[in-house]
């Protein structure tokens, strides 16, 4: 079913058509963890696993889309090149994308555009990261004009501070409780125990929260996702390539939508890492806020709506943010997110499981790899290969996240 797409941007540029489907031929990951080794090492493991899964030789890859990391020196800024060199130069076409947390989805979009334009038939999308300990901090140097530097220097506004402002709104405006947030962690940790790629494979209970220290009130350490090392890769191709290779398209996982969406002025919701919102004094805010519009753009591309979704991987940077995504995706009305987790609707076995991989809660965030890992998980779920955390009969999966400074991304895959 479709959704009402009357509001917001004109939709003519993303007509719904099966002609724009691409096929996911293979997916691969390096497990998430915290080892501090060279990120390229992790990327190679993911790349080789994806190539093996696709049964495609490295030399046959025509386009390499790298998702960049900004905390690993120059090789991280040119990830497409770095991974191509590590796997052995083949003269392929490349791109390197940075879009904060949306970098992986941006790389996927880059490859998708190349394939849909007919410039290549088969592509690798790859991202890997090695992260420092503790809070994410701005990159080094005194950069007084950089809003990311300013919010740390002038305000001490860490990432969890923003998650907490949002969580406080949920408590005071919707009547959510800290226990509702904890239930998200309980649910995700239960799923993550069974995921061999997850970093934290321990089941948490509500009782564990009482002894978890407050980071940014009302959020505790267990409410906030960690920063991790990890890598993920996808091999995607045109339907023609897949048909030549497989003999049929039946049963293949299709990419139906990749939306990389900006906010619409005025963006009146205070979002990481902004010191202030846009002003609504003169210009009327759009009907749909930024995070709503990311999902709506993807639904529009896919010709699908919230009722069609069998499972979703959402960016649970904090437990409370996962509840926001339920509402942004249209899985429930605004303010009703907590009810879904309380009623088990979003647990494996529920009506629409969310984060059956275990989510960022079980992985921690490896920025450029994370959005790609979300699509790896959807692929395995749709293929019935998510052993131990399988969503039975899943046909339609959605992954969504939000990069700093208004880089939204949402991917929809079907089988």
């Amino acid at each position: 079913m479709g959704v009402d797409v009357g509001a917001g941007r004109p939709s003519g540029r993303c007509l719904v058509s099966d002609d724009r489907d691409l096929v996911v031929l293979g997916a691969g990951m390096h497990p998430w963890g915290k080892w501090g080794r060279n990120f390229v090492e992790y990327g190679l493991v993911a790349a080789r696993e994806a190539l093996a899964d696709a049964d495609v030789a490295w030399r046959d890859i025509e386009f390499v889309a790298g998702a960049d990391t900004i905390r690993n020196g120059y090789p991280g800024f040119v990830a497409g090149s770095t991974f191509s060199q590590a796997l052995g130069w083949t003269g392929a076409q490349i791109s390197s994308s940075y879009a904060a947390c949306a970098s992986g989805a941006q790389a996927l979009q880059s490859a998708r555009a190349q394939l849909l334009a007919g410039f290549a038939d088969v592509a690798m999308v790859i991202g890997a990261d090695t992260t420092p300990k503790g809070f994410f901090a701005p990159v080094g140097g005194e950069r007084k004009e950089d809003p990311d530097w300013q919010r740390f220097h002038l305000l001490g506004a860490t990432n969890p501070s923003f998650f907490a402002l949002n969580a406080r709104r949920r408590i005071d405006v919707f009547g959510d409780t800290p226990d509702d947030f904890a239930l998200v962690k309980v649910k995700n940790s239960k799923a993550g125990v069974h995921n061999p790629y997850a970093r934290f494979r321990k089941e948490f209970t509500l009782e564990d929260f009482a002894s978890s220290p407050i980071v940014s009130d009302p959020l505790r350490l267990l409410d906030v996702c960690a920063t991790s090392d990890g890598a993920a890769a996808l091999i995607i191709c045109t339907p023609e390539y897949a048909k030549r290779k497989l003999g049929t398209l039946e049963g293949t996982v299709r990419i139906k939508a990749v939306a990389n969406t900006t906010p619409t002025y005025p963006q009146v919701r205070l979002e990481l890492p902004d010191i202030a919102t846009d002003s609504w004094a003169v210009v009327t805010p759009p009907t749909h806020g930024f995070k709503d519009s990311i999902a709506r753009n993807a639904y529009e591309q896919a010709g699908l709506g919230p009722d069609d979704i069998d499972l979703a991987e959402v960016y649970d940077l904090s437990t409370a943010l996962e509840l926001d995504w339920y509402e942004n995706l249209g899985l429930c009305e605004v303010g009703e997110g907590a009810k879904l987790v309380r009623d088990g609707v979003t647990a494996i076995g529920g009506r629409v499981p969310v984060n059956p991989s275990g989510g960022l809660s079980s992985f921690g965030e490896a920025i450029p790899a994370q959005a790609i890992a979300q699509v790896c998980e959807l692929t395995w779920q749709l293929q019935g290969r998510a052993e131990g955390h399988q969503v039975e009969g899943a046909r339609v999966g959605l992954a969504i996240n939000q990069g700093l400074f208004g880089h939204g991304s949402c991917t929809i895959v079907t089988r």
Partner: protein
Amino acid sequence: MTTKERVPAVDGWFTTEEPYTLIGARCGACGTYVFPPRSGACPNPDCASTELEPTPLSRRGRIWSYTENHYAPPPPYVAAEPFEPYALAAVELEEEGLVILGQVAKGVMAADLEIGMEVEVDLQVLFTDDEGVDRWVWTWAPAAPQGGAS
């Protein structure tokens, strides 16, 4: 050392003499507001103006949300030692249609705050620089009763 002059931690974002106000920018063509202040292009996509002028913002607003940080942020924040938890508030200015983040005045913690509460701009020392000069920053402080002594 005491000095009357308050040296801001960032130039041009707030006044350093009473009554303290934040300074935003306003578009001379469409009238929209911007904070932090800047020059150059108006952020309104339907306005091509490049005339953004500094303008004082309302001194008072209402809390949109708040939090309290219990861990020292990483540099470039200059954390006090030993670290003391502090509150942050995102405050809605009705006239300008803006929500602006700020630290809450020292000693006022999350338990003292609620959404919708009226607060006003004040200043406090953010850190002392390498030359021993106190650097000041804006804060949100519980609003004094209108007309009363502050």
